């Protein structure tokens, strides 16, 4: 099975082209099912690989590659052929990621059958979805960082296409551009890191690069720079501070796409990249600290920002950013397995929450939670599954989120109690805003009777994926935690010496910590219940009144959007200034002035030509024709033969004398 690993990204890729070019856009077009079939096949291969790896039948890592292209190069005066190879590298983390991406993608595609039903661009939507998944899978399996980078960019392109899918509206194209350009800012760092890697490591192959780092061929400063560059790329893709501004706007895409972006594809890419290149980070304490602090700041800021919005998808978006911060922080403090574990469980419950939110939006046709309320009566399945997802996100045992968050907190505490305190606080905030969302949406009285009356439970294609994801959200935590199965599968992180970076400076009893954090989470849920599970929102609004300044700051997202907008504005002004200098100074003085100078010189030259050269030419003609010629004519052409003979005689005599 493992030898078919290269098919995993290629099948959805082929499907996307088949869907896009295979036939016209029709209501009953069968082509979208090709996408579902392709991703289903990929999922089957991935699961086989995962179970083989799990049971130990398959030794990991597995690597297979093929020659991509080659070129002549020269090293220290010695010419050689550089063979660029591309292929697959399956590690424990890769196997898990493949299964997660394929599974979530499959469920999203099935769900979209219901959600996007009747959309005018149904077929194109499926082509984009398949392409998105294919790019992400390529990124995950590739053993060549150059291919990874190419897929990374393709992920960006497909997210652009999907966020701006309803491009006939106003907001989506804007959001798509914002996402694309913001992530590009980070990709610049990734690209520079790649150049540095090739300059110092001489290879893009991950395994060979790991060997090179292990042998100490790369100086630590270079490794730090590479690590920071990769982190910049991850910041953009995984929406880390300060480049997280694009993710809340990415909500403008269809909701299943948001689920895909937030759970499996787009944002997981950054975390995965850091995990894949963990050996680089592990070799540089500075890079590790940068990762940890980036994650910490992101987790906290996004966690607070999620407290205030009334847009259901926006709450979830900030929550994703916050959880990605948790993963980053875990990776940064040496919790390789913990970070990836949270990535896995988060994929399940975040996809569940998004698909559930999509189900709600599909029913009530609005994102605004103030117009929802009491929907649990109308949509029991959605309510139940979303509650499960919310409990998992809030970290309530024994759901998935509890185990992974617990591992992260444990790892972080070993490193620094301060970071632990911030993350624990963020975990409480998570519980609060998650249940704020649940209560606002499903409990209390209906606030918009018109919408409430029309709300209906979604059909089977939409609820079945919800139920599957809910089951996974319940089970995946303890199943993977059981006997440290997950940690055994992914290892403790390549390149990380056991106990080197994870040198536990502080210890805490896991039971005490878990009890404390869970108790705090329950308190937060209780607070959310008090404030939001009421017929009207008077208590919450009173709080908002009292704390208007912090609310304002949070609603402005700490001014980061304004900051980046100002940055763009400043760049725009700078460009305007440059244009002005170009048009008014360079063009006017240098270009036009030079032209004028040339024209003056040309006029002078023309004058000189007319006055002197032409006159000289005419003069030559005049002299030879009218002066010399006329006189010679009189002199020679009188028809007197004897004169001619005389000239001849005199001439010959002269020649003979002068000889």
């Amino acid at each position, binding site marked *: 099975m493992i030898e078919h690993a290269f098919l995993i990204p290629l099948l959805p890729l082929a499907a996307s082209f088949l869907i896009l070019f295979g036939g016209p856009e029709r209501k009953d077009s069968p082509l979208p099912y090709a996408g579902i079939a392709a991703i289903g096949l990929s999922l089957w291969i991935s699961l086989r690989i995962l179970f083989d790896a799990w049971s130990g039948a398959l030794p990991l890592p597995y690597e297979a590659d093929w020659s991509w292209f080659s070129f002549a190069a020269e090293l220290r005066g010695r010419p050689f052929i550089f063979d660029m190879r591309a292929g697959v590298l399956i590690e424990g983390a890769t196997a898990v990621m493949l299964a997660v991406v394929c599974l979530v993608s499959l469920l999203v595609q099935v769900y979209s059958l219901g959600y996007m039903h009747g959309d005018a661009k149904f077929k194109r939507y499926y082509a984009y979805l398949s392409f998105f998944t294919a790019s992400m899978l390529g990124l995950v399996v590739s053993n060549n960082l150059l291919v990874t980078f190419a897929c990374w960019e393709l992920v960006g392109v497909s997210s652009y296409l999907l966020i701006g899918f309803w491009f006939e509206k106003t907001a989506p194209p804007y959001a798509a551009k914002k996402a694309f350009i913001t992530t590009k800012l980070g990709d610049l760092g990734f690209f520079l890191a790649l150049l540095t890697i090739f300059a110092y490591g001489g290879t893009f192959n991950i395994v060979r690069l790991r060997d090179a780092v292990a042998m100490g061929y790369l100086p630590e400063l270079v490794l730090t720079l590479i690590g920071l560059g990769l982190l910049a790329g991850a910041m953009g893709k995984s929406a880390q501070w300060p480049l997280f501004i694009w993710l809340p706007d990415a909500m403008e895409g269809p909701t299943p796409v948001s689920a895909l972006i937030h759970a499996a594809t787009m944002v997981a890419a950054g975390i995965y990249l850091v995990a894949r290149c963990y050996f680089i980070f592990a070799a540089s304490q500075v890079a590790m600290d940068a990762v940890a602090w980036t994650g910490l700041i992101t987790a906290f800021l996004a966690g607070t920002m999620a407290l205030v919005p009334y847009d259901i998808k926006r709450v979830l978006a900030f929550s994703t950013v916050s959880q990605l911060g948790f993963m980053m922080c875990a990776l940064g403090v040496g919790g390789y397995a913990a970070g990836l574990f949270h990535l896995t469980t988060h994929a399940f419950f975040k996809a569940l929450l998004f698909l559930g939110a999509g189900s709600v939006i599909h029913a009530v046709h609005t994102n605004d939670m103030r117009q929802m309320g009491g929907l649990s009566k109308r949509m029991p399945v959605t309510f139940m599954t979303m509650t499960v997802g919310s409990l998992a996100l809030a970290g309530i045992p024994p759901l998935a989120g509890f185990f992974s968050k617990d591992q992260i907190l444990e790892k972080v505490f070993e490193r620094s109690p301060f970071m632990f305190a911030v993350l624990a606080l963020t975990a409480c905030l998570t519980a609060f805003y998650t249940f704020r969302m649940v209560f606002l949406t499903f409990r209390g009285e209906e606030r918009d009777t018109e919408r409430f009356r029309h709300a209906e439970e979604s059909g089977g294609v939409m609820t079945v994926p919800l139920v599957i994801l809910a089951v996974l959200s319940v089970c995946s935590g303890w199943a993977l935690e059981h006997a440290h199965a997950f940690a055994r599968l992914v290892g403790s992180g390549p390149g990380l010496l056991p106990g080197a970076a994870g040198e536990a400076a502080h210890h805490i009893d896991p039971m005490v910590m878990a009890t404390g954090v869970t108790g705090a989470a329950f308190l937060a849920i209780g607070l959310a219940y008090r404030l939001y599970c009421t017929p009207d929102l008077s208590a919450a609004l009173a709080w908002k009144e009292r704390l208007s300044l912090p609310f304002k700051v949070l609603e402005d997202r700490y001014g980061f959007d304004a900051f980046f907008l100002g940055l763009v504005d400043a760049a725009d002004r700078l460009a305007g200034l440059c244009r002005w200098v170009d048009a008014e100074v360079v063009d006017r003085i240098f270009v036009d002035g030079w032209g004028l100078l040339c024209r003056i010189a040309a006029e002078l030259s023309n004058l000189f030509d007319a006055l002197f050269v032409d006159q000289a030419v005419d003069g030559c003609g005049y002299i030879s024709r009218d002066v010399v010629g006329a006189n010679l*004519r009189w002199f020679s*052409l*009188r*028809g*007197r*033969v*004897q004169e001619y*003979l*005389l000239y001849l*005689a005199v001439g010959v005599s002269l020649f003979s004398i002068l000889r």
Partner: protein
Amino acid sequence: MTLAHYLFLGSALFIVGIFGALTRRNVIGILMSVELMFNAANINLAAFNRFLAPAGVTGQAVALFIMTVAAAEVVVGLALVLMIYRARDTVYAEDINILRG
């Protein structure tokens, strides 16, 4: 009698011929002067043959050729003169200027 004497005689005869050809108005006189120049050349040929290559007769043979050609030329020339006289009623060279450009 050395070669120089003969050459001197040839030159004198040639100059007389030239002088005649340049000064005579009558075309027949010009023709006679041209004959003198031919003969100056003949004297040179015979003299060179006699003094420089006495064994052969090349120079004398060429001289004989020239005499023959000169005789033919005179025939043609006199015929032309006769025809011009009939057409224009004159044999003075300055009057015969129809080739004037």
